[in-house]
């Protein structure tokens, strides 16, 4: 089969131990089988990532992937995917980002970047068209992400895109990430630490070869049709103006921010007083976005006489404002700025800090456990704790290991209070957001939490069931499946629907097209994907084949964790979800379906059964069957099931 556009058709492999760079061709059949991005990364994990590695050992591999659409002008074609074995969860899964790095790698002419081994001294990897080099980076070691990025741009050229980690990564802090171009986070689960263990300060890219298109006329026409829809939508200007703060009213009023380690909801009037969209606008210095995005949601904020970038301000407000009780907006921005520069993951940090203070205040741990330190929330306490975590000082060293290490250190009573899945904090509390697909997907996600689970539109409450049916239709769901998902026509079966929410996310992240934010996803549907794919690549894939490729990719990535022993026991909801949460006006929030039916543990377990059943997996074990692998053309991956069986 001839591929005539989109894909570069090759990838580079950098061995930091041997100081070697190889360029390998991609087989066309493999490209189409896994689509690219997320899917192709899963295939490369099977090819390059050995079973049972220590995530911080040289044998761990970082796989970066950019789908065929990345670097093209199709609206919102920017998402890149990184796949590795994560220090926080010890599972193999993926993380997404925007930013210009992926586009530059595609313009340089690569579909993937595979990094293995560890360098003896600090290095950076430079990808510049046909040249891929390992360059000395000692001068940037010790610098924060902003300093290092600016220094790298000065030395190498200001049109490079830079993925860099900060002091947290250098110190192998597991709750660390990287920033793409000082703005977009990448690699929740500990990419910073993985790069630190490889002495890899940054990966930079600049490309001038471009992305080819098989049928430019058709592609141009289709892209313009999508763009016209965006242009004609009356809400886009508002979304662009407010960024993610456009969701503030809904989140604050209807859902509520989790507070005090998921025991309460942040007082609504205080939230408005502190962080309302009006107040946000006073801090707004500009708007940025991912390459080719017509909507835009990245923030540029006034900060200490200069500016600071934030990849999703509403998320920051929730993290710093509610979880760790930083009321003042200036201080919220400063906390995020600090986390950015250190390369600390804001979600990971704020959740684990919230928990630490909770168990300390409950007397579950004392100063004996914290080395004499009295942990507290609020601006001063949290900045101090961030400094301690970054530098692995005192109790900071325990938090640096994430929930799995911290609950092991502090004991079962402390573990009871930890609201986490597979070692990562939950993003959504379904007692507030209801048990919709993003919430439920947290149980089964490979890395342990959202938002890769399903489109974010289903966090907005009180949408009629017809909207869910319409979403299913636009994503190409067939009639038979729809009848199972909507067996009770007034609601959806969240266990079954989550499979399809996850696979839509897999599809977009494999193609490198569309975005999981509702405000972009509403402009795309499976028919557009089908038409754009053939216009871009010259390869005619049917809707069924596209959907199956997404299923195949999810199963492949799942197998990379299954071979390590992950199964149903790891897909466990937190106990806290089955206790009430204190809501405003003395209301008790309890676990319910999206449309309000109460849920207990048995109900959730049944939804989990239905999720596995919908996936065609073994229900008891929660893993793919040999039959499913054969159906997906993954017979070569049966070793993963054999490896799992050996460990059982």
């Amino acid at each position, binding site marked *: 089969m001839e591929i005539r556009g989109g894909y570069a058709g090759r990838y580079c492999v950098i061995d930091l131990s041997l100081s070697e760079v190889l360029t390998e061709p991609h087989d066309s059949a493999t490209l189409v089988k896994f689509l690219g991005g997320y899917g192709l990364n899963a295939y490369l994990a099977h090819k390059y990532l050995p079973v049972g590695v220590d995530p911080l050992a040289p044998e761990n591999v970082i796989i970066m992937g950019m789908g065929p659409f990345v*670097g093209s002008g199709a609206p919102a074609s920017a998402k890149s995917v990184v796949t590795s074995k994560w220090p926080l969860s010890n599972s193999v899964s993926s993380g997404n980002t925007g930013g210009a790095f992926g586009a530059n790698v595609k*313009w340089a002419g690569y579909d993937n970047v595979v990094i293995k081994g560890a360098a003896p001294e600090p290095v950076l990897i430079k990808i510049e068209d046909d040249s891929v080099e390992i360059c000395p980076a000692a001068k940037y070691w010790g610098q924060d992400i902003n300093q290092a990025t600016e220094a790298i741009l000065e030395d190498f050229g200001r049109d490079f895109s830079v993925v860099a980690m900060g002091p947290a990564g250098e110190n192998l802090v597991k709750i660390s990430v990287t920033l793409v171009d000082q703005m977009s986070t990448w690699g929740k689960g500990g990419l910073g630490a993985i790069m630190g263990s490889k002495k890899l300060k940054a990966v930079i890219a600049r490309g001038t070869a471009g992305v080819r298109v098989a049928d430019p006329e058709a592609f141009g026409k289709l892209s313009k049709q999508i763009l016209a829809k965006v242009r004609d939508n009356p809400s886009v200007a508002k979304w*662009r103006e407010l960024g993610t703060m456009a969701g503030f009213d809904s989140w604050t009023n209807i859902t509520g921010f989790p507070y005090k380690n998921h025991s309460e909801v942040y007082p609504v009037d205080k939230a408005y007083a502190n962080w309302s969209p009006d107040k946000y606008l006073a801090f707004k210095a500009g*708007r*940025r976005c991912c390459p*080719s995005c017509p909507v835009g949601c990245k923030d540029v904020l006034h900060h200490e006489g200069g500016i600071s970038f934030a990849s999703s301000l509403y998320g920051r407000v929730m993290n710093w404002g509610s979880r760790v009780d930083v009321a003042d907006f200036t201080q919220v921005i400063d906390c995020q700025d600090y986390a950015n520069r250190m390369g600390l993951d804001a979600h990971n940090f704020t959740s684990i800090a919230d928990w630490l203070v909770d168990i300390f205040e409950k007397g579950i741990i004392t100063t004996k456990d914290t080395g004499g330190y009295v942990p507290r929330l609020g601006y001063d306490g949290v900045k101090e704790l961030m400094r301690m975590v970054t530098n692995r000082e005192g109790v900071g060293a325990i938090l640096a290991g994430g929930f799995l290490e911290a609950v092991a250190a502090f004991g079962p009573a402390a573990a009871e209070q930890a609201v986490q899945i597979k070692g990562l904090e939950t993003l959504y509390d379904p007692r507030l957001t209801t048990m919709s697909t993003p919430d439920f997907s947290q149980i089964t996600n490979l890395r342990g939490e959202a938002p890769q689970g399903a489109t974010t539109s289903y966090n907005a409450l009180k949408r009629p069931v017809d909207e869910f049916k319409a979403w299913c239709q636009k994503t190409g769901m067939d009639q038979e499946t729809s009848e199972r998902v909507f067996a009770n026509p007034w609601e959806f079966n969240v266990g079954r629907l989550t499979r399809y929410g996850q696979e839509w996310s897999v599809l977009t992240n494999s193609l490198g097209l569309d975005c999981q934010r509702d405000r972009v996803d509403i402009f795309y549907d499976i028919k557009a994907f089908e038409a754009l794919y053939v216009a871009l690549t010259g390869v005619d894939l049917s809707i069924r084949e596209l959907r199956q490729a997404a299923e195949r990719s999810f199963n492949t990535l799942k197998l990379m964790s299954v071979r390590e022993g992950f199964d149903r026991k790891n897909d466990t909801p937190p106990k806290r979800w089955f206790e009430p949460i204190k809501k405003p006006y003395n209301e008790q929030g309890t676990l319910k379906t999206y449309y309000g039916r109460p849920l207990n543990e048995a109900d959730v377990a049944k939804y989990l059964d239905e999720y596995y059943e919908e996936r065609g997996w073994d229900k008891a074990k929660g893993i793919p069957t040999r039959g499913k692998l054969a159906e997906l053309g993954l017979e070569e991956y049966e070793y993963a099931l054999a490896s799992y069986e050996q460990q059982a």
Partner: protein
Amino acid sequence: MSKTLLFNSKNCMGCKSCELACSFKKDKVFNPARGRIGPSQLPHEANVVPIGCWQCEPAICLDSCPAGAIFRDEATGAVTVDEKRCIGCKTCVTVCPLGNARIVAGTSKMVKCDLCGGNPECVQACLPGGIVFDEPDEAMLVQRRTTMRELIGLEILKGGW
């Protein structure tokens, strides 16, 4: 004054859709390096500054070309290069202070913005209004004249062409 590209750095989000639309229109490939427009660099600052050709009057690139390959399009007022006449001497590249005359890597031909015959692709691709196609107002004209005077001592945009 005829319509030209006007740039608004407060609206620009740095999405590079303009560069991608331009290279796609002209060369059927998505490649900012082949765009005739662009911010190209995305600084860690409040605003991204889109840069494109001002279609100056007089145009120093046009006046400097030894091959007479640069001319003004009568319909749009765009300063346009005739690729067949271009000898790749790069005089225009040297003299344009904004870098809007570019040599495409691997060729020896200059390319520049020609306003796409009056319906610029970059403008179609720019939703937030970082680039618009309109007649410059007096403030914009003053700003451009001042800049060009300070950069290369040239008086431009004094009147219609």
